């Protein structure tokens, strides 16, 4: 017990130093910690360059990466409680395919800014899944997952059509986008995404204890005085808002919202009062570390979505084998 408590403390304590230190990681080797200190004291030669790189390029990227990671993890955690299923995440509802199609359409036709189009179609896909599954004012979990799969299929086909008719240059940027693209982070993107990312995450934070009750089942929630339908709808909207904004600014970071909540639960246990805040901090820090690593390979940056899977997959499997993950059946 004491050991996991120490890990939790460590996760919270290390978050801020990692955010700060991440400012000094990147392909511009001359803008490291030492150069920044020098620049602060008015020493060194290219002070302006150092400040520009750190404040205008790295700071927005670091903050955006942290927020995206935290929001994806928190959304995944809440979706798993809502569906009473540890194998779901926002992408199950068709979010990623919808957003990928939206981005591709915008890249191919320039009808809307890429992020906005991704956001709109991400929301559309989740909305479609939700309304297709709705019958007699209730949404059965199985129908929702089924309609999510179907909506995903539809948008994947539409994406293929857009790709098929795009010229090679545009095709390349579409493929890049779908692999996750934090290297295009900017202050503008940060400003655009910060509000929905935080609003979605904060809503889930407020509902974190109620998620325990929702995870017990509808009858249990209803007979304890909670409208399960209303709470689930609020949590779904919050998770979709947060994760579609994440997809809109960072592309598809596959399975992040599935893996992180599992890792976090190994430390915090399933009680969402502890798990939700820990997901946000750990999800943010972990994505930041992955991004730091990917930025350290100067000149050759691996897209974050690909890198996350390559790193997160084995980490997850290792932890699953090593710890008793706690799923009995």
């Amino acid at each position, binding site marked *: 017990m004491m050991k996991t408590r120490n890990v939790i403390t460590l996760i919270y304590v290390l978050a801020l130093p990692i955010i700060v230190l991440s400012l000094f990681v990147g392909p511009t080797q001359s803008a490291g910690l030492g150069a920044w200190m020098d620049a602060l004291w008015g020493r060194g030669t290219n002070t302006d360059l150092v400040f520009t790189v750190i404040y205008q390029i790295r700071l927005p990227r670091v903050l955006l990466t942290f927020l995206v990671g935290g929001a994806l993890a928190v959304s995944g955690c809440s979706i798993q409680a809502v569906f009473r299923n*540890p194998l779901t995440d926002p992408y199950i509802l068709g979010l990623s395919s919808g957003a990928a199609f939206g981005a591709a359409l915008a890249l191919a036709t320039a009808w809307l800014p890429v992020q906005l189009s991704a956001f709109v179609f991400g929301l559309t896909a989740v909305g479609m899944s939700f309304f297709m599954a709705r019958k007699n004012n209730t949404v059965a979990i199985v129908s929702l997952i089924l309609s999510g799969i179907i909506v995903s299929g539809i948008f994947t086909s539409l994406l293929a059509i857009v790709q098929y008719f795009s010229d090679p240059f545009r095709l390349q940027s579409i493929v890049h986008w779908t692999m996750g693209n934090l290297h295009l982070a900017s202050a503008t993107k940060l400003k655009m995404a910060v509000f929905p990312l935080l609003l979605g995450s904060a809503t889930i934070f407020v509902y974190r*204890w109620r998620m*325990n009750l929702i995870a017990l089942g509808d009858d249990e929630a*209803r*007979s*304890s*005085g*909670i409208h399960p339908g209303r709470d689930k709808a609020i949590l779904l909207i919050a998770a979709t808002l947060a994760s579609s904004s994440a997809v809109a600014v960072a592309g598809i970071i596959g399975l992040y919202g599935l893996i992180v909540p599992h890792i976090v639960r190994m430390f915090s*246990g399933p009680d969402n*009062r502890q798990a939700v805040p820990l997901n946000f901090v750990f999800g943010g820090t972990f994505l930041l570390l992955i991004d730091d690593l990917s930025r350290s390979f100067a000149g050759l940056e691996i897209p974050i979505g690909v890198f996350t899977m390559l790193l997160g997959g084995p980490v997850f499997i290792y932890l699953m084998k090593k710890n008793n993950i706690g799923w009995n059946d």
Partner: protein
Amino acid sequence: MERLTPAFNVENLSFSYREALVLSDVQIEIAQGKLLFILGRNGSGKSTFLRLLAGLLPCRVGVIQVFGRDLKDIPMAKRAKMFGFLNQQHQAVFPFTVEDVVLTGRASYAGFSPKKADFEVVRETLEKMEIGYLRNRIYSELSGGEQQLVMLARVLAQQPRILLLDEPTSQLDFHHQSYLFSLLRTFANAGLTVVSVLHDPNLAFLFGDDFLFVKEGTIFRPPNGIEPWDAGFLNEIYPCEFQSVPFNDRAVVFPKITL
């Protein structure tokens, strides 16, 4: 003596799943402070009736009144303080601790975050049920019977005036069955209304004050002058021959076995 408002007053209640009529024109009054058992065959509509009382199924035809108020007009959070409902079975998905599970019963009091007093109620409830030692155990790793006791503790932590229980002893061993029924007896003696669906008529006859029988969509009490443990009467409910054996001032029944 002034007559207490009934805990439940059901009038002209009918209910159907799609086209199949499950309950038809039910008229029943359930008194306060009694230990009442609902008996009947599998699929006769016992659980449906209980779920209607609990407000978990919509009452479209007829009226259900709780303490004189139409159930439809009572907001959900208020209902939770009036009656608690124990499901027949519960499938745990996440490995919550027992304390976390029981704590969720406080949702109508605690809103978004449980307070110190809520933890206190949880602790007292577990102690009262003599399962305090389970508090930090993982709910999904408990035996079926222990899980059932924990779920009952969850309902009790809700501090309702009525308990609606669907087969509360289905998973319990012999000791826990008699323990649970004595507990329900104490609750009823203290003024709590207990309405429980039950498969075993003998346990009902040993502990109960009042008995409802469900057959082919109708709900009724034994006719005047006939005791519920009457072998002839029971034969109308369950299609087998019974033998009634006197016990204290009541009786227990056994199916007649021809070998």
